[in-house]
């Protein structure tokens, strides 16, 4: 017959079990933190790695003879640049039969004609001279230069045949192929060809939309908060406005797109795909953020400040504008930061008002068609060509960098506002 263990042993076992639960909860929690941040870090790493190919661009140095018979000095815009590019490409392989000239031209980006035209129009003195230009290589050759093409694979299963590869290898041996930093990513407009596609249009569109958004949502949001906090002491109107703002803050962004489509585009007849409409939609979307942040900041200003103002005979507006608002400025700037982050990164409502159109030109006005950074990322990441996916990843990095920069500026401003107290 076995006897029960003595009571203190049983108590020890129970204590150990209770201690073990405690240790496990702590470990699970630490694991969750590490898992969440680690996964986010992995995603960022994946994006950075994916963007690496887009940071550099393979170029081929071509000597173009700007023949005055093809491009007249009096009217360079009407010149036959296509022929000049064809001759320049053929001259890369002087001993090849003329039948292969078009194959040689395929090494260069199809946008080479446009690049050469811009170069000559900018500098008409070039007419009649020889111009050595580093032209971006076409997508498949860019992949080849990066060793992303399996040379052992059967010819039918790759885009370039053996002759193409031999031709490119000869250019490499001639020292004409180089890899340079891809400044075109920031300064070019969008294009069908990944090697010359850039973010200039998207960046301009985003900047315009953001400026319009802030110009609308900051004054209106701050005014709404002032009315709510400083002027209307808990009457029915303020309760309705406050509940309404809280509700608007949680409306899914895509519904603002439906609103913009129905009201701004269909009803007011404003142009689709324009930064103007995008900015207005984003302003409505970020308005609750500004109102909530501003009213929090106003409520945090001590009552004594207001009472001191009233005591020396200031009117309510003088108290608010001269004393309360300057003290609430840091909190209002926090709201502005949140609004900027929200407006710059949001794509869903912009899809519905056509900001994901294919636009190659950089917009010059707020009513011209444009894209924005997030919608451009969406466009590129859905494209089947490998070059575009890398560019989408690089565009995400540009978006994140501009978010960090804008937040940094706002944090600095807040610091200065806080010091002035």
């Amino acid at each position, binding site marked *: 017959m076995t006897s029960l263990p003595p009571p203190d042993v049983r108590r020890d076992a129970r204590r150990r079990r209770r201690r073990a*639960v405690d240790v496990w909860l702590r470990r699970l929690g630490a694991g969750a*933190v590490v898992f969440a941040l680690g996964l986010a870090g992995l995603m960022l790493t994946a994006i950075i790695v994916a963007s690496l190919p887009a940071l550099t661009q393979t170029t081929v140095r071509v000597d173009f003879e700007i023949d005055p018979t093809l491009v007249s000095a009096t009217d360079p815009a009407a010149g036959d640049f296509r022929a000049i590019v064809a001759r320049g490409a053929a001259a890369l392989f002087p001993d090849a039969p003329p039948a292969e000239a078009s194959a040689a031209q395929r090494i260069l980006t199809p946008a080479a004609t446009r690049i050469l035209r811009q170069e000559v129009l900018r500098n008409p003195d070039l007419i009649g001279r020889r111009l050595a230009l580093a032209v971006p290589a076409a997508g498949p050759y860019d992949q080849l230069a990066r060793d992303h093409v399996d040379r052992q694979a059967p010819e039918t299963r790759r885009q370039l045949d053996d002759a193409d590869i031999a031709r490119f290898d000869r250019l490499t041996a001639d020292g004409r192929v180089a890899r340079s930093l891809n400044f075109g990513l920031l300064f070019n407009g969008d294009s069908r060809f990944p090697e010359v596609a850039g973010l200039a249009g998207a960046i301009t569109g985003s900047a315009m939309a953001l400026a319009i958004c802030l110009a609308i949502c900051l004054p209106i949001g701050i005014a709404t908060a*002032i009315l709510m906090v400083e002027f209307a002491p808990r009457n029915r109107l303020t309760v309705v406005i406050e509940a309404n703002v*809280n509700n608007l803050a949680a409306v899914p962004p895509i519904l603002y797109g439906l609103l913009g489509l*129905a009201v701004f585009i269909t009803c007011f007849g404003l142009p689709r795909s324009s930064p103007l409409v995008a900015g207005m939609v984003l302003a409505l979307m970020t308005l609750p953020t500004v109102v909530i942040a501003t009213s929090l900041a106003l409520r945090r200003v001590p009552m004594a400040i207001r009472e001191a103002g009233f005591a020396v005979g200031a*009117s309510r507006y003088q108290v608010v504008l001269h004393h309360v608002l300057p003290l609430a400025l840091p909190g209002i700037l926090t709201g502005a930061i949140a609004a900027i982050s929200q407006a710059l990164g949001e794509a869903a409502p912009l899809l519905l008002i056509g900001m994901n159109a294919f636009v190659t030109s950089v917009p010059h006005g707020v009513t011209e068609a444009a894209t924005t950074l997030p919608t451009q990322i*969406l466009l590129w990441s859905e494209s089947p060509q490998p070059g575009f*996916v890398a560019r989408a990843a690089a565009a995400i990095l540009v978006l994140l960098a501009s978010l960090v920069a804008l937040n940094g500026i706002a944090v600095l401003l807040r610091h200065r506002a806080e010091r002035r107290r």
Partner: protein
Amino acid sequence: MPGSLILSTLLFAAAAFFLGRAAARPFGTGARSRPVYHGALLALWVALPGLAVTVAWALAQPALLDRLLLAGLPAGSVDAIGTGGRALVLAQIHALAEGRALPHLDAVIVEAGARLSRWREIGRLALFATVAATLLVSFLVARTRITPRLHARAAVERALTVGLVVCASVALLTTVALLVALLRETVEFFRLVPPAEFLFGTNWDPQVAFRSDQIAGTGAFGAASVFAGTLLVAAIAMAVAVPLGLLIAIHLVEYARPGTRAWAKPALEILAGVPTVAYFFAALLAVAPAIQHAGRALGLVVSPNSALAVGLVTGIMILPLVSSLADDALRAVPQDLRQASLAVGATRAETVLHVLLPAAMPGILGGVLLALSRAVGETMIVLMAAGLVATISLDPLGTTTTVTVQIATLLAVDAPFDDPRTLAAYALGLTLFVVTFGLNLLALRLVRRASRTDAS
């Protein structure tokens, strides 16, 4: 043109401000208001009539000119073709007036086009003259009223109050406009498709109804399968975000050293600020292929855009929201409760599980509901699964579709505004609005109750 007029009106008003302030300076202490207010009042008196004239003119002129144009056309040439023809004729005249050349036009219309561009020129000059006169007259009239006895401050503050009310009404108008836009199109949609069929029908194939030989609403707009996909994605997201978020909050509030908390909390806040398009891209690039590989290793067939991948990434996106709201709720539990529990010998884990979590439950639930509403309304991440046929299936490894994706894809084509597909997008939008509105209302009430018990 109105833009530059508005700008010059504002410049004129700025000048009026300085003039008014200078005029009030000599009043000294005898004046009822300070000079700044005299200047501001003068500027308001100048700017408001000027702006009102410009805006009213810009709104009225096109309609007035159109009516004059139609009246100027020979009798019978337009009436015969009805309203549609009238709009066409007007469009042709407008195109001509803007300098576009159109072939094969009636001489009457060509002549009308020339007349329109002449009228527009006259209108432009007349508007300019009217605004200039308004500015000048209102300035002169207002200037005579700048006296020491004028209660300028009270008048300026009255105007400011009107301005504040107008600004505050924008938020209200947004809600009203949103509701009106959604309701109007949805009512239109329900005329084509009965509501019961939309809500409970399982056959979702919006492209079919576009065919001309088919009557819209023969069962192609049953959105139940779309709702099912949305729920599936949201459920997976919540299954990821709620346990992880709670564990993170418990760890950061109860266990982590202050040093760890100091960097982990801002890191989570940064995560909350990352644009969703970045999550979308990471999902497309890394997470979905990883899940597909893992599934293949286990001998499962996983679709490249599986609901699992979409839900997982959505869950990671809402994770910071859950953890920060749970963090707030846990820290709002009175310190007495925590200390009493520890004092009677409970371990940290027992304190958390038996005392803190029950006390913080309303706040945590509110956070979870807010996160659920975010997950349901999320568009960008679920766009990965776009363009796919909706079927009722709760298989997390297959593809799926959600309400937001269907809205985005239905409106991606530039269809006419009364197209059933466009209307269906608004009906889906209204459903989304109602669901998220309910969730938010409940969540805000729970969070508010949680913070009230904390305050008492």
